[in-house]
């Protein structure tokens, strides 16, 4: 067996991470070499230059989401922002109560922050979404209790790309005086975010999902009405005491530039990506027994999560090694469990196993999409030709009614 090491797979995993836009990299480099000063140094020009870079970046991040720059706190990424927001606000407002609310399909770092608070004595509700991945507003409202202190709902789901109705959820929280946190790691540059209008108290951002560097993110902390959080990182009192630690100037500058580009280019880019996604979807839907996971309308154009029935997940991943995608299959996860997100939608284990998440981005071309459609059609056909379940399906046998000898 010969392996062509030189040929890289086609990258269709932009929801995992994105490459740094070359324009972003260019802007970062001077802040690694010549402008190396500590932005907290107030006594010389090295510090002033670095501080200027940081503050300009803060303005750019704020502009993308229509916030005040003073509402932006730098962190190491969305995981830290989510931890800081959830634990920080729940701790600060614990006098109000010790119940917290989120959704079963949130990112692991939200779920795990909730688990940590449960260990500290809080009670948590993990709301099940509807089969299309969206949160039912009435169920959300009913899940709020008099002692609910905080609710956390992600803007855009990382696996299935569905967009939650943040405005409506936020209004419910306002009425009930519940702090509302939103993980927007997957939303920046993909959906319009206007924090002047959205009733959101805390919002998490990440740079590397939006063509910025890894290791940098931000937390929006509303000033009017003012939201308080307890710091999780203690030290020199940076970021108005909410997050101590020397600022990573070059990373911050990179995030600012990445968010500036997103603001300027997102409308056109999203249109282009939507066309590619629709082409991919139509190409794949030619096949039988193909299921889109998650609502197709209330969804970012970048994401397509599809299950291919009667094809086993790991063999599917082996078959499509010429494209870089992620899968809901157990075999590709560290936990050996199929995707908890797909299972929360009520998908069977088999369908969860045979799912692939395609995520399209800035550098995806039409040729990439054409190649992907061709590859998938060929490999799915091959694996189904190999599959006794496919034969049974074709013979009209309902596989769920067959008595299998579990092993």
């Amino acid at each position, binding site marked *: 067996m010969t392996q062509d090491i030189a040929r890289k797979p086609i990258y269709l995993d932009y929801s995992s991470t994105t490459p740094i836009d070359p324009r972003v990299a260019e802007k970062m480099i001077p802040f690694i070499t010549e402008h190396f000063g500590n932005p907290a140094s107030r006594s010389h020009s090295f510090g002033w230059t670095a501080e200027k870079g940081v503050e300009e970046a803060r303005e750019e991040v704020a502009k993308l989401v229509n916030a005040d720059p003073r509402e932006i706190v730098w962190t190491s990424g969305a995981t830290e922002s989510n931890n800081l927001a959830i634990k920080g606000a729940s701790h600060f407002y614990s006098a109000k109560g010790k119940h917290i609310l989120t959704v079963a399909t949130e990112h692991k770092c939200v779920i795990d922050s909730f688990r940590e608070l449960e260990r500290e004595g809080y009670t948590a509700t993990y709301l099940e979404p509807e089969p299309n991945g969206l949160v039912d507003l009435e169920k959300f409202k009913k899940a709020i209790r008099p002692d609910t202190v905080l609710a956390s709902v992600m803007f855009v789901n990382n696996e299935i790309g569905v967009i939650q109705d943040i405005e409506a959820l936020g209004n419910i929280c306002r009425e009930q005086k519940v702090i509302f946190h939103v993980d927007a790691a997957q939303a920046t540059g993909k959906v319009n975010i206007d924090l002047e209008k959205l009733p959101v108290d805390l919002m998490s951002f990440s740079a590397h999902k939006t063509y910025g560097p890894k290791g940098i993110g931000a937390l929006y902390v509303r000033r009017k009405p003012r939201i308080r959080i307890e710091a999780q990182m203690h030290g020199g009192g940076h970021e108005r005491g909410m997050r101590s630690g020397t600022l990573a100037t070059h990373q911050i500058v990179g995030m600012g530039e990445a968010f500036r580009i997103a603001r300027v280019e997102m409308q056109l880019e999203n249109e282009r990506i939507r066309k590619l996604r629709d082409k991919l979807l139509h190409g794949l839907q030619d096949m039988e027994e193909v299921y889109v996971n998650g609502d197709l309308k209330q969804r970012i154009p970048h994401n397509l999560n599809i299950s291919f029935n009667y094809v086993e997940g790991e063999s599917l991943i082996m078959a499509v090694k010429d494209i870089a995608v992620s899968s809901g299959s157990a075999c590709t996860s560290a936990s050996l469990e199929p995707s908890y997100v797909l299972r929360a939608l009520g998908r069977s284990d*088999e369908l969860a*196993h045979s799912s692939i998440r395609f995520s399209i981005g800035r550098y995806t071309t039409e040729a990439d999409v054409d190649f992907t459609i061709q590859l998938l059609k060929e490999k799915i056909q091959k694996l189904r030709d*190999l599959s006794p*379940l496919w034969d049974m399906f074709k013979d009209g046998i309902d596989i769920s009614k067959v008595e299998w000898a579990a*092993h």
Partner: protein
Amino acid sequence: MAYSDKVLDHYENPRNVGTLDKDDPHVGTGMVGAPACGDVMKLQIKVSDDGVIQDAKFKTYGCGSAIASSSLVTEWLKGKTLDQASEIKNSAIAEELALPPVKIHCSVLAEDAIKSAIADLKSKQGK
């Protein structure tokens, strides 16, 4: 998942994929596994009147090692008598394919499939 070249070869170029007429009195069919467990193997053998396996075909829903294990046994089965066939052990399959420990169950399933196909043939022929 780091697979051996042999697994990859059988996965890329599976041998003897197909279906034999399950109503033929000379054909034995074995179907083992379950979709919920992630693998289902269908193995068929066609046996001459003097008890020698003339042909073997498989279809497998499963991971790369499940496909490779079933492909490999179809190669091994051809030309063997039923007695010789029933002596094929999962350990030999696992060894030949250098299966990692988490994939040993695939070879067990392949051995079960052989036994199941032979049992089906024998019950058909009233032996």
